[in-house]
């Protein structure tokens, strides 16, 4: 085999298996009728991408991918699905008629064609490293040195961003007092007044 002589077989097997995991997860996410199933397919896809990260030498990002995405983000999704009680089977999960779905498919296929040309071309090779060499040490060490020196300000800004996001989420999901009075049935609010 020509490919096997150029690429080492174990790496090829890992690549094919992880791509299969990603494909099954992605297609499953698109076709799942229950939101909970979609969330589980999302976890599957994220694991596949994490395997590809490891194969490309990005061990730290693979770990973060599993901990943050599969651990925190998907759990958040599941919390909201369970909390809202929206885990019903969708009768028509795809929006619009078949023409619209077909048009969306054609548009996505066109984008993919352009991306294929870019991916298989050699436009980006030969550029010089500007942020530092990736192979200058261990993966975590190189990333840490870069984050805490060159990219210290963006790193601190992400802390501010996370605080803003948390405060925003709390305010969004909090019930306003006036709104509560308007939504509640009359006898409930009367009872509360009596208790007070």
């Amino acid at each position, binding site marked *: 085999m020509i490919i096997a002589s150029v690429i080492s077989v174990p790496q090829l097997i890992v*690549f094919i298996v992880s791509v299969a995991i990603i494909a099954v997860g992605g297609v499953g996410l698109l076709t799942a009728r229950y939101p909970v199933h979609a969330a589980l397919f999302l976890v599957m896809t994220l694991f596949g*991408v994490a395997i590809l990260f490891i194969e490309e030498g990005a061990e730290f990002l693979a770990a973060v991918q599993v901990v943050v995405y599969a651990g925190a983000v998907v759990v958040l999704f599941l919390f909201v699905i369970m909390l809202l009680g929206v885990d019903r089977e969708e009768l028509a999960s795809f929006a619009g008629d078949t023409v619209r779905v077909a048009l969306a498919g054609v548009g996505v296929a066109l984008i993919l064609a352009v991306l294929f040309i870019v991916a298989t071309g050699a436009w980006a090779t030969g550029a010089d490293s500007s942020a530092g060499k990736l192979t200058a040490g261990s993966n975590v060490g190189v990333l840490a040195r870069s984050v805490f020196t060159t990219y210290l300000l963006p790193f601190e800004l992400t802390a501010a961003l996370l605080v803003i996001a948390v405060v925003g989420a709390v305010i969004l999901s909090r019930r306003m007092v006036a709104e509560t009075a308007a939504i509640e049935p009359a006898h409930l609010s009367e009872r509360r007044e009596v208790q007070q």
Partner: protein
Amino acid sequence: MTIPGSWYLVVAALLFGLGAFGVLTRRNVIVMFMSVELMLNAVNLTFVTYARMLNDVGGQLAVFFVLVVAAAEVVVGLGIIVAIFRHRATITVDDISSLKG
């Protein structure tokens, strides 16, 4: 010899296409949101691939920041979905069309 970077880029492109198709065609807001996560992951894979191809740490750093922003985005987005569900008792996009011109 390692696997050529273009293979990873093609996988990332396909994953991005799947995510885009999901956002365009699904009705459930939560599933649409998951499709956005799929697209973000495809871009992350592209970043990591180019970081390896160009031997540049900047690509992996970009993924690091994308992860943080994605986490913040999920928190705010799900907060908005919860707020919409409280007011309208639906998360189907066809029913949430008040901003339609």
